């Protein structure tokens, strides 16, 4: 039901029903790995779902400390959000360049993606530092424990993604676009876009709802 007649034009007709996409330069190993990585991302969804549940339960308990409305600055969060959104689209351009086999363009887009991602993480760390300096660290109230747990876990994922981008830039330089490198780039692409999707939930539930409920 997924295979459609139009797609056979790209393949050798005799092999169309038997191969698993080898004519496309993508082996079974690649598709299995990418699907396995998708399943990992789904398990990561459950991890974030748990942290969102914890945050939602704890958020009303500010223990006399600062409320979300007093703490959060929405223009700051909007800037952060746009940095991550820019990094998501530049990674997409990088993937297109990689599939076209354009090494310099790929490295350039990956570097741009890294810069936006690092900007996002820098802003987040700045925000955390500011909260701690104001006496609004994770130990201040249940709300802040939930906040640092959830937003910090997303930040750790972004930091891991940045390290992965550097590793992939090195691999593109060293090995070019051989299948294993492209496969890893595809997994990283899923990971990076997935983090942007999680961030939509973070800015809506933590920041926007926080300010709306406690303004």
């Amino acid at each position, binding site marked *: 039901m997924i295979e459609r007649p139009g797609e056979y034009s790209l393949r050798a007709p005799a092999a169309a029903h038997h191969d698993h996409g080898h004519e496309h330069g993508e082996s079974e190993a690649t598709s299995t790995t990418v699907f396995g990585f998708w399943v990992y991302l789904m398990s990561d969804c459950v991890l974030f779902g748990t942290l969102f549940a914890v945050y939602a339960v704890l958020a009303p308990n500010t223990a006399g400390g600062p409320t979300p409305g007093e703490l959060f600055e929405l223009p700051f969060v909007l800037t952060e959000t746009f940095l991550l959104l820019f990094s998501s689209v530049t990674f997409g351009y990088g993937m297109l360049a990689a599939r076209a086999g354009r090494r310099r363009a790929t490295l350039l887009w990956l570097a741009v993606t890294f810069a936006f991602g690092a900007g996002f993480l820098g802003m987040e760390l700045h925000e955390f530092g500011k909260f701690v300096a104001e006496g609004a660290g994770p130990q201040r109230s249940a709300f802040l424990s939930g906040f640092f747990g959830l937003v910090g876990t997303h930040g750790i994922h972004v930091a891991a993604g940045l390290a992965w981008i550097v590793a992939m830039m090195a691999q593109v330089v060293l090995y070019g676009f051989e299948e294993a490198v492209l496969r890893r780039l595809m997994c990283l692409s899923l990971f990076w876009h997935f983090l942007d999707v999680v961030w939509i939930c973070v*800015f809506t539930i933590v920041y926007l709802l926080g300010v709306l409920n406690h303004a």
Partner: protein
Amino acid sequence: MHDDTPTARTAHDSQASHGSVGSYTLGFALSALLTVAAFALVMRPVLSRELTLAAIVILAVVQIVVQMYYFLHLDRRSERWNFISLYFTILIVAILVGGSLWIMSHLAHDVMGMGIEG
């Protein structure tokens, strides 16, 4: 369908949909629009609190779908197993989040309503 394994599908499906400069740019433009709209509704309120709440939740859900489609390339050509695992995950997360909020609000209500001796 002679072969129903996940492996057989992703091979050409991942090949079938990886987008173009145009689709990535369109996905970005839509996401930017939805983000700005959500922030604007909270920063410069024009609706009642309840309507604002409903609006930003809907804007978030729409943006998730937009990014799933334009960035993660989840569409009709995608692997069936990607969708099955996604739906299963949504179910688990819904039980996890909804169930937690439900039971914790009941517990809070009971503690406040009945006091220690209850």
